[in-house]
């Protein structure tokens, strides 16, 4: 059985492509950094891949709103390829700027459950942090154990860096949120690390810096109704190893006790990528 193939987009200011490609490889994927224009011009075909990752960065400098211009390129130039990719049941992840791109493309949170195929209609947005500042800081995330998201399966809580100036997740009305919540699409939220596991999630906006951006309902990431398309503002790839956790010199960096990839030093972030690789293999 062949190794799952991962297309990691780059170009036009995407800048987390190297590490995003690397983490898929650490968990048994075969990833390739591919310039967006290779797909646009037809030199490469999205359908040849099993997983699509849109990494973080500053596509087009985030002018006119984060992810917007890259979202437009994808919405207008890759519409058919993306539609076919989702229709084929293949996982997509957008991290940070990639999440912003997927939201502005309309792939996230996507249409409702009755017809889950992409319609490329923007339903939510990610806007300037309430603080008005771009910041790099570590936050604590809690995941919805009932989410259909294939990426977050089995993950409950994680320390993770956020690195963004436009990470405040907004939707026009609370009924929009209620619909996503009912379907467990609000897959990951910012939580107070001092709360007991499983009890951190709240709809009331948490104070800065627990919520680094003032997101409505403390949303850090959402999935589409199929659970295959997922995006989040924090950077799980940046904690693939314990030595990237700020507390590793204190001997308290969390993570699995052992792993094939990194021995005692696997970080909490790697499981997300392993989930997708295992999902692809399980569907064969």
């Amino acid at each position, binding site marked *: 059985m062949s190794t799952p193939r991962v297309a990691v987009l780059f*170009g*036009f*200011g*995407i*800048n*987390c492509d*190297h*590490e995003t490609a690397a*983490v898929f490889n*650490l968990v048994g994927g075969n990833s390739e950094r591919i310039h967006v*224009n*290779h797909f646009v011009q037809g030199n490469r075909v999205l359908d040849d891949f099993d997983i699509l990752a849109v990494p*973080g*960065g*500053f596509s*087009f*400098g*985030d*002018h*006119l709103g984060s992810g*917007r*211009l890259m979202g*437009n390129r994808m919405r*207008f*130039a890759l519409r058919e390829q993306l539609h076919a990719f989702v229709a084929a049941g293949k996982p997509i992840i957008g991290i940070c700027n990639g999440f912003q791109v997927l939201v*502005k493309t309309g792939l996230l949170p996507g249409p409702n459950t009755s017809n889950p195929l992409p319609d490329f209609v*923007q*339903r*939510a*947005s990610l*806007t*300037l942090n*309430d*603080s*008005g*500042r*771009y910041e*790099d*800081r570590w936050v604590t995330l809690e995941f919805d154990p009932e989410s259909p998201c294939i990426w977050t399966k089995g993950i409950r809580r994680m320390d993770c*860096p956020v690195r963004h100036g436009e990470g405040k997740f*907004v*939707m026009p009305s609370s009924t929009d949120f209620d619909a996503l919540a009912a379907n467990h699409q609000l897959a990951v939220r910012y939580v107070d690390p001092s709360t007991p596991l499983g009890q951190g999630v709240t709809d009331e*906006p948490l104070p800065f810096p627990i919520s680094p951006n003032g997101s*409505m309902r403390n949303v850090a990431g959402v999935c589409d109704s199929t659970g295959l398309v997922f995006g989040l503002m924090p*950077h799980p*790839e*940046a*904690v*693939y*190893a314990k*030595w*990237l956790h*700020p*507390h*590793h*010199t*204190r*001997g308290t960096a969390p993570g699995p006790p052992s792993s094939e990839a*990194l021995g005692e*030093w696997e970080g909490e972030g790697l499981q997300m990528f392993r989930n997708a690789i295992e999902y692809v293999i399980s569907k064969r």
Partner: protein
Amino acid sequence: MAITRVEVTPKQGAGMRDVRGDVVRRQLKADHGIDVSEVRSITGFLIKSSVPSFEISERVDDLFSDPIIEDAVTDTLFLTSPQHFPTAPDAAITVGFKPGVTDNPGSAAYDGFRTIFTQDELLEDASISTYQTYIFYGLPSEVTAEWLATTLHNNLIQRAEVADGEACAQAQWPAIDYPEKPPQTRTPPQAMNLEIPDEELIALSESGLLALNLEEMQTIQGHYRDVEVQASRAAVGIVANAPTDVELECLAQTWSEHCKHKIFASKIHHVDTETGEDSVIDSIFKTHIMKPTHDMQKEVDWLLSVFHDNSGVIAWDENWSVCMKAETHNSPSALDPYGGAMTGIVGVNRDILGTGLGARPIANTDVFCFGPPNWEGDLPDNLFHPSRVLRGVHAGVRVGGNESGIPTVNGAIVFDDRYIGKPLVYCGTVGIMPRVLPDGRESHIKTPTSGDIVYMVGGRVGYDGIHGATFSSLELTEESPSSAVQIGDPITQKKMLDMVLEARDAGLITCITDNGAGGLSSSIGEMAEYTNGCEIDLAKVPLKQPGLSAWEILVSESQERMTIAVKSSDCAAFESMAELHEVEATPVATFTSSGMFHVKYDTDTVAYLPIEFLHDGVPQLQLESEWSTPQQPLFNPESIELGDDAGHSPVLLDMLARPNIASKESWVRQYDHEVIAQTAVKPFVGVERDGPGDAGVIAPLHGDPHGLVISCGIAPRYSDLDAGAMAAASIDEAVRNAVCAGIDVDKMAGLDNFCWPDSIESVKTPDGKFKLAQLVRANRELERVCRAYRLPCVSGKDSMKNDYGSGENKISIPPTLLYSVFGDQPDVRFTATSDFKCAGERVYLVGISKEELGASELAFMMKENGQAEGIGGQVPLLPHPEQNINTYRALSTAIHAGLIQTAHDCSEGGVAVAAAEMCIGGRIGAELDIDGTGDSSVWSRLWGESLGRFIVGVQPEHEADFIEWMAGHPLTFLGTVTSSQELIISDGYEPLIKLKIPVMVDAWQNTLDMTGGVA
């Protein structure tokens, strides 16, 4: 062609915020104490195109506004809409760019515009300009709209339209127009008559901003008198007996202090009035920097490339090499802090990309020197307040680094009154490259051959950046601002970087360098030395706007450009790669072996200079240096009265709040320090991730813990007593910071970046001899310490004119050396950080505290508070550096042996401040006794800044092993980390300090938090 106006403003409603407006409101509060009840914002787009307005209007939500969070209007001003702005504001201010200034949002909008409107005929000469409007409500009556406008824009590059309360009440709204650049006409090359008297030669140099002295002008004059030169010139059809303006400009650039480092290369007559020394130094650079490094290169196998390339390269492991370069961008940052600093960081990124056959930038460092942010004194004309310089420089570096996807892993911010005259903005970058490329070539060696085609890649050439380097000596005017400063365009550069690294791996590049100072003149000129000749056609160079003359195209310093040589057989592959990445790549020259720097405009020869004359023709400066120790009133701490029982506790709180010591977290956190997923020791460490990190540690190969350390040292205060001691302290501090992080002291390299005041004696600089002697002493100490540490200086730079004004009002910066260290970290899983780890940890001082309070941070504080006469006294010295490095080696290997996880260098504020920072990072107390740490006074042992010292923490189970490991090195037991929330320091039975941790946290964190909060 029509102009369509689109305006966008954030939606109002539950949970929604106008964050851009809010940021302005908070900054007015933080910087000026002004309370405004609300500030709202509008972003405007002026679209110049033949697309009809109604078509743009229909697609506004697809491009200009985000329908979920924003509203938009077309061809009207939002302020006229009562639905959106029901009440008249107290002021409305619109800020846009001046013609020709880089407008990144505008360029991005245009790129997006082309995604939607694809008919080429409608887009001919189309472009988009942007502006911001700020609308103020509840403005205090004493605040005028005109003043507000000055805080919101820099009139060097921006325009503002202002409506005050009265105008707003009458609905007279500010409306800015498209910044049309008036058409320019190209002037053909002129012959410059140099057969003129000496005084006219000088006048020509000054009026033409050539910055050449008489001897240099005469050397050029002499060249054109040579009959052989004249004959060869006649043969190519260029004016025979005089330079063209193109040639004179080209020589001025190539021979500039900036490019040729004439002071470091000069012959110096040095006199020491105290020792009686009277000697001659033939080039400080060759004597004190190059020679020691070349000597060390003979002894190790890892120094791959030093001095001659854009950065110094060392072998890191069998497969990878790493390189580093640091630059300064002081004058541009003084004129426009934001643009100046941004071009500083993206410029040094290009130095890395232009190293060898191309290295990938993987880490940035930023070190700034500013006036005090809370300065309340007078400001000289044309200078910004230090807080504005800080904000602008920080924003420029933040945007430049973050958008380029390069983590900022290390840095410092230093404050001194004299940096009001000239801020120092040091930007450094570390790069990595495979040692051998897929085609078998070693990546650190450039391989151009005659016949290779030379491309200009990336941005275009414009008026921006002409004479950028020399502009700072002119009066600032309203007239030609866009050529004075530039704004970087990180995304254009990032696209170019992606493309260049792909081209490198495909084996398409034979030679590469960046376009910085001197533009194409320097980049192609320097590369042409390899093949001994080139032929350039300036008519092929793509321009931002028509009308540039030949000399302007040649010397323009427009940003985001690399110059790359490609074999003619590879040109097609190279060009198609550029096309894929949407990067402009234009062949503009060919390497030759003619011996000539041959520049044409189409078929006309406009410059024809021998390569040898261009690069080696500049005459050596002869300079005078004279040292006598500066006399400073003595700092006598014994005369300081400490308040009753509190002892030294209040002093510690005051010291922690000093801008030089206080936490810079609110600024540093705005840099991405973790992109690339490699940063193993971050700028802030500890329980709450807010204690000071000593050095950056990265593990750049994913999955592999092999690491690199990046650190810096800077100690300009000591120059007030001895610039030599300043240099030694800077190097020692950089090395100690790196040791804390576990650097292999036998595989590390350094960068020397000197920023000096003018040190050539003249009417303007009567004390030039002394300032030059400071430079001599600094370099002698640099050589002595680096030889002892076996620390090669692999790259460096100097900026030698850091003064403002003249006469009594002259401000000269303190001579400042930034020393950066980068080197091997064998395994990032073994490193130490400054935070105390847990109760019971045993605390030791490594090193000895001497009687060295001269020019200490304490002395400066007491003098400023009026509690001390002066800062004079014994400055920290490094008498036996060879002993120090042995101790550092022992300490670093102890870290790798797993014996210690806690280490912090002891610098500004001495043991007291270092211990306080370690408690803050660990959010835990300690009980320490400084008895036995040296024979010096209690003031020196507590606050002194003696070099070579660390505080380390050892877990009890490793204590015996650690003591044995450190046998023979100075080590004193200080005490124990306690479970209390209190730092207690005593001297034997005498209590000195007793402070709660949260109180210290507040003192340390509040001074420089200028964010204005998040509410």
